[in-house]
């Protein structure tokens, strides 16, 4: 077992893992209440991979993630209020309500985003590392992705180019055993994922992703080696997703016994138990941490619910960096003529997605979700 960090550090890791857990549990509830739309991918069970790795970064290092990225925003310090507001599609969301669950972003904290396309973030990570290297900084980029992404073309292409150009990037494959509902042994010919970069010049390492201490120790070693040697590494963090792939996942691809076995290794309760056993915390403090986190998440929900939806007139904002130039490919005169075709306020209010309609819809969506015996009724059959 890796050594315990100083007590205040250990307490912060536990608190942040608990925050991610409680935040996502509430996000799931808010999804069932139709406060959150689209897809919602939870990382419950994978918290140690998030906190253990991100806490091995310097503040100036970059972190880039996938569509399962609420925890990555939270671990970098994005306020839960803004992450929840993004899930609610509100103007105070960390992506202004444009991205949603799969596209969290916080440039100021060097969280370079969640990305909805499996494997899409790998080349971008290499580009960020290239810029760091070119600019003469010591910054390292940590790029996380799932086991499923290791089959994408961008995995091989990016590892090759990163090794070839000696880019300071740590590739972290969060192996939660499934690419959506396809088990690792059914989607990857090589299941020893840490070895998948060897032929591309990227050596591998592995950590127990249910153990925040080991995850931190291995990632810290990898990150500092990459920082010093200017050669990328691949780290496999072995973990398990306790919940479905997304909210509409009947989980027919795995047994309840298997899930139960992994839940016994819950990264939060095991780390909390360890801290009590080692005398870092007592049970009362453990409960206080949880209560504080729950209160914080309640505040995040209240904040998100109070935040307005983006104004209809903001629809075209930020398609382009404009600097006073003409927008899109319509000229100014044409845009004026086209605007007659746009919905007026009353028409917009009558649409099913309007703020008023969203509030009306909640009881119905909640009841249908409950009737289905699931956490949510995601997109009537869409499960991605």
């Amino acid at each position, binding site marked *: 077992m890796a050594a315990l960090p100083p007590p205040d550090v250990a307490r912060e890791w536990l608190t942040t893992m608990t925050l991610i857990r409680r935040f996502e549990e509430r996000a799931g509830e808010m999804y069932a209440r139709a406060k959150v739309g689209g897809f919602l991918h939870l990382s419950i069970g994978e918290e140690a991979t998030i906190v253990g790795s991100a806490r091995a970064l310097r503040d100036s290092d970059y972190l880039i993630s996938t569509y399962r990225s609420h925890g990555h925003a939270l671990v970098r310090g994005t306020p839960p209020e803004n992450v929840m507001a993004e899930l609610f599609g509100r103007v105070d969301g960390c992506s202004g309500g444009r991205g949603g669950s799969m596209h969290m972003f916080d440039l100021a904290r060097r969280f370079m985003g969640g990305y909805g396309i499996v494997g899409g973030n790998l080349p971008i990570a290499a580009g960020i590392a290239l*810029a760091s290297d070119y600019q003469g900084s010591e910054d390292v980029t940590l790029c996380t992705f799932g086991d499923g992404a290791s089959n994408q073309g961008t995995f091989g*292409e990016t590892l090759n*180019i990163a090794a070839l150009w000696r880019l300071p990037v740590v590739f972290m494959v969060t192996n939660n055993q499934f690419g959506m509902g396809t088990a690792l042994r059914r989607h990857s010919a090589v299941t020893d994922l840490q070895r998948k970069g060897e032929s591309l010049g990227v050596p591998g390492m592995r950590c127990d992703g249910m153990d925040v201490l080991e995850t931190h120790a291995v990632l810290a070693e990898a990150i500092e080696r990459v920082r010093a040697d200017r050669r990328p590494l691949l780290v496999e963090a072995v973990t398990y997703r306790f919940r479905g792939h997304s909210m509409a996942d009947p989980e027919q691809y795995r047994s309840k016994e298997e899930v139960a076995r992994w839940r016994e290794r819950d990264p939060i309760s095991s780390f909390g138990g360890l801290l009590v056993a080692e005398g870092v915390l007592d049970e009362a403090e453990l409960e206080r941490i949880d209560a504080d986190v729950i209160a914080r998440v309640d505040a995040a929900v209240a904040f998100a619910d109070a935040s307005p939806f983006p104004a209809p007139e903001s629809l075209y904002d930020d*398609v382009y*960096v404009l*600097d006073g130039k003409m927008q*899109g490919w319509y*000229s100014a*005169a044409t845009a004026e003529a086209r605007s007659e075709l746009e919905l007026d306020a009353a028409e917009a209010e009558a649409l099913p997605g309007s703020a008023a309609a969203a509030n009306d819809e909640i009881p119905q969506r909640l009841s249908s979700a409950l009737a289905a015996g699931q956490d949510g009724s995601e997109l009537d059959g869409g499960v991605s």
Partner: protein
Amino acid sequence: MAQMRYREALGAALREELARDERVILMGEDIGVFGGAFKVTDGLLAEFGEQRVRDTPISENTIVGVGVGAAMTGLRPVVELMTINFSLLAFDQIVNHAAHIHYMFGGQATVPLVVRMPQGAGHQLGPTHSHCLEALFLHVPGLLVAVPATAADAKGLLKTAIREENPVIFIEHEALYGVRGEVPDGDDQLVPFGRARIAREGSDVTIVGVSRMAVTCERAADTLASEHDVHAEVIDPRTLRPLDLDSILSSVRRTNRCVVVEEGWPHGGVGANLAALVSEQAFDDLDAPVERVTGADVPMPYSKPLEDIAYPHEPQIVRAALAVLGGDRGSVPAGGD
């Protein structure tokens, strides 16, 4: 003014911008030691070194993605793809990432990236190296699309593209690389986006030509003048996003007739888009339906006689112009008459 080939003008733009701004780097397959598949980047590796002029593996999607990430964090990468057909391997990074990142992250990140690539038929390269696909990029909000037809525009637009804050798809034409033209002297001769070039003034019919077709349209206009006493106004939009629709409309309001000419496919093409816009905006000014001249609706064949008739030439443009002036009706796809 200096006489320069289109490829030399592009090379000059890259050289000047590399010298002007340290954030500019070039990446692409065989752009360095080999000098570029079309020799646009010839000499730049020796001049600027391998940190700034980077030969890449053959990994189109990833090299564009590396450009996206580097652009988000302070560089101004210019990625060369060897032909536009290869850009299809990079469509994920171009559309899902480069085009959308600014919007999807609420305006926090910008992607000042240029992706250069040549297109076009005429060199017997068959169905995987010859197409004109500007319509695919035109379709995507978040991208800017430049289609220079002259050496001066190649240089001036590329310099603008490199200084632009938005991702730019910069589409060159293989048949134009060797064509000479006058290029204004000086490092700061930029050609702004969204401003069409009136290649030739005229009062009888407006002919809009995209990419290399702007050049073909000028030749057709010569024939229309000398053989038919028809004075065509030829407009080269130069950029498709943003589009200088105002210049096209003001011309159509004078000529009351419009022909749009592109090398790409007819369905969902640039011409279809332009024809719709002109019809929507200037219907009352039109004396005839907008006529389109397009490439044939086929994968580009290898065999020379077939390739020749699969993309537009002057006679088809002349016929289309005469048709809107009162001759025979009917759209004029290449090889279709």
